[in-house]
Structure formats: C-alpha cells, structure tokens
C-alpha cells in the first residue's frame, strides 16, 4: 500500500450536537454558538426515523442565522426520502447559511423504518448504501444543474435566466430516476460538503467516491491511517484527486471526570477502546472495555488528555482531523472549547478566528466548478 501524504496544517474539528430529548431551538443554538466560539470547522446533528428527535436539517437551518461562520452538517437519510427533495433541502441550507452547509449521508435498514413509509420493504445494507451512493451522485449533479451565472436578468430580451445554462441531469439509478434541473439555483459553495461515516464496507465505497469528509472509527493512529490510505487509494481509483478528501477520526468523548478516566457503560454493538492519559502519552486504558471494532475510540478523561490525543494522532500524519461526539454535549462541549481547544490554540493546532466564511474554506476544499458549465447547447443564445 503506498503511503498517504501526511495530513498538513492544523487538525480539522467537527463536533456532534446530538442531545436526546431536546426538541426546542435554544438547546441547539446555544451549543452551536459555543462550538463557533471554539473556531471548530463544523457541527453535526444526527438523524433517523427510528428514534425520537427533530428533523436535523430543520434544526441546523434554525441555527444558521444565529451563527455566522461554523459549518452545519445534518444527517439526511436516503432510503425512504426523495433524492430531489433531499438535494433541494441541503442546497437551501447552504443558501440560508451563506455557504456553510454539509450533508451527512445515511441509510435506513430496518423493517420498522420501512413500515413508517409503507412504500418498500427493508433492504440489506449493501443495497441501501449502493442507492445512497446514487443519491449523493444525483445530488451533486442537481447542484451543478444551474451554472453559477444562469441568472442573467437581460431586460432587452426579457429573459431572467439563460436556459442554456440550466441542465437536465437525466439520471437513471437502479431504484429511481430524476430529470432535473434542480428547482434551487446553484448554492454558494457550488456543492455543499458531503460527509460519510466510512466505517462499514458499503459506506466506505460511497465515501471513497462521493464524500468530501469521511469519518473513520479506529482504535489508534495506525488503524486510522490505514483506513485513510485505503480511502485515498479508492478515491484515486474512482478518478478523484485524493487531496479533495478529508479523513476525520470519530471519537466519542466524556469529559465528565476531570483528568481521571473511567469506562462508561456503552452500546455493546459498537465496542470501544477507552483511552487514558499516562504521563505525557494517551494510551489505551489497561483492561478497557471492548475489542477493537474496526474499532471505535472512546475517550474518557479531561480536556488536557484529549488535546494530547488530538495532537498525537494528528502529529503522526494519520488523520486530517477529528469528529468528536460528546457524551453529554451541554457539559462536555464547554470543557472541549474552553479546555481542549484553548490548549490546541497555544500549540498552534487550532484556529483563533475563521479566515474563511464557507465550510469548504474551513476544510481547505476548493469550490468545485459546475460539471455542465462548459457543455452549453451549441448555438444557444448567450
């Protein structure tokens, strides 16, 4: 396996706002503002039809005008939703946030979720992830279906748009087709940032092809580095420049016990490695819970140890950053921002202000050109 280029610069940081039992706007606005004060790249909010919680994209649209810089990445599932609606909602989140939208792609695999819709039976992960890849694909095409300069407002000819700069996408997937173009003009970022949790094999294939940000669960920097290298190779195989893919290690964090550590009672489906700080190093806790599961990392300790862990892993060049999921956001996020981020800033490993205004700029990802922009109808009026 060719060694992947070392991840440059400061680590990219995203944080999950998921707060069980909260349906009001204030909870999420407060957390997002806190994360923005810490200069993090983005916040995420998970979503699923199978457990209580508000629509994640709605929540982050509500958060958008209450924040100015931080990226906003809701999960939107693709199995029981309409691809056309999904891309329009994500594009609109990009408009209302002035270029800060992302989209974490996820699927529904259970029979219980299928019965909420009554349209199609549950399908195995391989099938629904293949479809998710097609939805991500058509979303990218629909975001490109308006050229950036499609609106011309040409009074002399009475035309609001140049229709040669609008494109039918005529996408044919295995389970759906979409004619296009989108109803929404091309969003500020061109294409909002696509995030995929690349832990499962089927999701990893989608991440390599379509993700701007891939989340990986690993038990240590070597494991994360191996997945990152694999993702970059597969991205290159798919014809992509691997440097357009950011690979972030997914870490659950519990900052509830100062610099002491403990092993929490966690979901047995996702065994974790508990880490602790030993001297200046952060190492797997002796006798820690669970075996590596491709593996998931759970950090339980203080803000200083977490800063050490981030610096260690990132310093080894094995990841581009971290996606942190606080066990208790209301408590842990404050310690993360005031403790961990402050320490990282002292070490030059976290930004003190946002030099850019879009999520792509935070992630160091260029704004993509529209794929159809050169393909105007020959002889079309200009």
């Amino acid at each position, binding site marked *: 396996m060719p060694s992947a280029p070392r991840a440059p610069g400061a680590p990219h940081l995203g944080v999950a706002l998921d707060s069980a039992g909260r349906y009001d706007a204030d909870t999420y606005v407060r957390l997002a503002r806190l994360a923005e004060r810490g200069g993090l790249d983005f916040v995420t909010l998970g979503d699923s039809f199978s457990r209580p919680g508000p629509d994640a994209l709605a*929540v982050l649209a509500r958060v958008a005008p209450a924040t100015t810089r931080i990226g906003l990445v809701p999960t939107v599932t693709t199995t029981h939703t309409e691809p056309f609606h999904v891309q329009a909602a994500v594009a609109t989140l990009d408009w209302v946030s002035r270029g800060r939208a992302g989209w974490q792609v996820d699927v529904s695999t259970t029979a219980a979720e299928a019965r909420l819709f009554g349209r199609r039976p549950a399908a195995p992960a391989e099938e629904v992830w293949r479809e998710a890849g097609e939805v991500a694909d058509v979303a990218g095409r629909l975001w490109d279906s308006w050229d950036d300069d499609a609106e011309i407002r040409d009074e002399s000819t009475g035309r609001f748009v140049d229709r040669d700069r609008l494109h039918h996408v005529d996408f044919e997937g295995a389970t759906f087709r979409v004619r296009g173009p989108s109803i929404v003009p091309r969003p500020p970022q061109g294409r909002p940032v696509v995030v995929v949790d690349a832990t499962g094999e089927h999701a990893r294939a989608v991440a390599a092809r379509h993700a701007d940000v891939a989340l990986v669960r690993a038990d240590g920097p070597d494991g994360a580095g191996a997945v990152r290298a694999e993702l970059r190779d597969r991205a290159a195989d798919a014809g992509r420049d691997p440097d357009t893919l950011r690979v972030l290690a997914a870490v659950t964090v519990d900052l509830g016990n100062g610099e002491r550590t403990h092993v929490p009672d966690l979901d047995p489906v996702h065994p974790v490695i508990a880490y602790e700080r030993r001297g200046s190093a952060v190492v797997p806790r002796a006798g820690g819970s669970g075996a590596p599961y491709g593996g998931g990392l759970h950090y339980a300790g203080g803000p200083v140890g977490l800063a050490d862990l981030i610096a260690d892993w990132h310093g080894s060049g094995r990841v581009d950053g971290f996606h942190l999921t606080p066990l208790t956001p209301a408590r842990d996020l404050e310690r993360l921002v005031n403790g961990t981020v402050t320490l990282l800033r002292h070490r030059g490993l976290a930004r003190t202000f946002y030099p850019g205004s879009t999520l792509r700029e935070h992630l160091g990802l260029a704004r993509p050109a529209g794929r159809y922009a050169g393909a105007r109808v020959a002889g079309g009026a200009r």
Partner: protein
Amino acid sequence: MTGTADGSGAPRRRIHLAAHFPGVNSTTVWTDPDSGSQIDFSSFEHLARTAERGLFDFFFLAEGLRLREHKGRIHDLDVVGRPESITVLNALAAVTDRLGLAATVNATFNEPFELARRLSSLDHLSGGRAAWNVVTSSDAFTGENFRRGGYLDRADRYTRAAEFVATARELWDSWTPGGVRRPFAHSGRHFTIDGEFTLPRSPQGHPVVIQAGDSGEGREFAASAADVVFTRHGTLEAGQAFSADVKGRLAAYGRAPGDLKIMPGVTVVLGDTAADAQERAAAIRQQQVSPQNAILAAEQVWGRDLSAYDPDGPLPDVDPVVDSDLVQGRVRIGDPLAVVAKWRAVAEAKGLSLRQTVVETTARQSFVGTPEAVAAEMDAFVQADAADGFILVPHLTPGGLDDFVDRVVPLLQERGAFRTAYEGRTLRSHLGLPDPIWKS
C-alpha cells in the same frame, strides 16, 4: 381599541393579513431597479421582518418541484428557481418572533411520516408558528423528478390529500400528553403505515392547514380539513358567494364558521392620489407584461407557436389548439376557445394590440388607491363577509410590502379592524382558531 362596524356596538371583524413572497409568475417584476435577489436569504428576511413589523398573521412561501417548460424548453421570461420552503422557514424562525410561517408542500410527492415530522419540527423550532399549504399534483411532467413518477390519477388527488392530512394529524397526536411515545397504526386506501413518531405534540398541537384549490372537491376538502383557504376571488360579490358556499359546508363536519378563515390572494398599489395610484398600477402592468411575455401569454391560450407575431400588432388570426402540450408545469387554461373569443372582443372594442390586450385581460390588481381608500375597501370586504383577510402578493422582492406596512396598516388599526399588538405567540392564536382536540 375595539371599533364597531356600524355604530351598533357589535365588535368589528378583525382583518387577518399574510405576506406572500413574490414567486415565479409574471406578476413578479424582476426588471425594476428596486428588484432584489429571489434566492438570497436576506430577501426572505427582509419581507418576513416587514410582515412582522406590520403584525401580519403569517408569511407564505409557494413551492416548485420542476422548472416550467414552454415549447419543450425551460421557461425563461419570469423568475426561475427558488429555495425549498420548509428550510427557509426554519431559518426565518430565527429572525422573527411571532410571525406565522407557512410552507406550500405537495401531498402527491411526499409521504405522511416524513412530512408530518418536518412540519412538527418547524412548529417546535418556531414555538408554534408553522402552517402547511396542502397542494396536490398529478402530472407526469412533475413526476419525472420523483421516484414514483406521475403515478396518481387526477381524480385521486383530493382523496390522497385528505387521507394525508388525517394521517399527519394522527402522527401529531400520537404521543401522550405526558410526553410518552406511543405506537400508531394507520391503514387506508393510500397509506398503510405503523410505528412510532419521533416528536412529542408540538406547541400548536397541529400546525395550521391551508388549502388553495377552488373546485367543488377543493371546497369540500377545505370545509372538512383546512384552517385557512387561499382563494383568488377578487370582487366583493364573488368573495361573498365563495365565503357563503364554503362556510355553509362546515356544519356538516361539526365546525363553526369561525373555524375556517377565507383569505384571497390580492395585490395592492398605493398612490398619494387616486390618479397617482392608477398611473402606478398601469406602469406595473407594463412591467409585468413585457413584449416577450405578451407572446408567451398568448401562446399559453392558443396552445401554439406565435413567435412570428408582433406583440404590438393585432391578435393572432389563427384558431387555438385545444389540449396542447406546449406548456408544462402550469395550471392549464380551461377553455381556450372561450378565452380567445373574449380577448378578440376586448381587442376589437377598445382597439388594442396583442400586448395591450394581455395587459387588459390578465390584470389582477385588487386594491388600487390612496392608503385611506385601500384601508376602507379592505375593511369593507371583511365587514361584508367577503373574506376574513388577505394574502398580499407584492410585485417586488424584497421591499414590495414596505409601503403597505408603513401607510395602510396604521389606518386599519385606527379603524379598529386590525390588531395593534400580537396577543398570542402561536399562529393559531393570531388567526383565532380553536386548539385541536387531542385524539387518543
């Protein structure tokens, strides 16, 4: 202050007002120097803040699911494109405090569980200000953007919409008043679903339901299930007839006349004098009907290519094509032969060109006059039971209601015909609608 309509002491009926963001019809003027972005959030924020400053009941967004086409190509003469409604409204909830937030969402190309969840989320996140304008569609043209295509028979549009609304309400009611999640099961002709909803009951219980069709089926659906009807009846007499008809249907569903608000979509043109207002109205009509739009409007009626005709010349001398597929993504002209006959009569009687005829026959300016005259006329409409209020459709984005809010609202307040402060926090409270019964 409570005014009285006739000095008898009976309380004066209060007017309800809503602001419609200018859409993709030719009524939206994009050529004016004051015409701003149709897509930037700042435009939505401006109009919503203006509406809230004017103490409006709600802000209204239309929906698009496919760009319109004309002669097989994307229609390019009017505003094209828009953001997705519910997402914009969630963002507007952050920059407004009391204003109702209404999204048009199609019942044909959505499923009850997901849409009920999105509407409930908006209601939670806005503190009880969500409304849903239920529309239906059956055309295969729009269906080309969706998984199921154009699957629905035209006749089933309202049966699906009615079952959709009923199912959404079952989901909204599914948690216990104590906030405990309970399973639901619905089995009907269009939907057979079961499971658990992901949200507790929202602040309004049920988001407000708006209905916008005008057919017999549409009226019956409104009477059975809607809280607000968005109509287009422009004259006092037509409004009274419509209102009497629809409100007369309520009793059969155990509902009172006040349970359904009738709000026609209207335009307002103000001037310092009556003549000034008329002059402005004529200028706006000229802007709305560009030479190219005049040809297009005629092609929609004739159902055939008229690009060789001069908009400043006489009407086309050919017969219309009935059942033409020239135009896609718009409401069809019901009887082209009758419309052409009417246009010819108007053009002949007044000696009008094609463009002038379009200006003359498609004018839908409702209230034209001084602020005092417009306030008096609107008030008279409501006191005469021709409407419960109005959905104002400005021709300019985003400042098209600035003058109305600054100059007409205070006069309506002086007359005792409009609120001087928001009294409640929810859209239901603004509209004076009863709280929905929690069915369990």
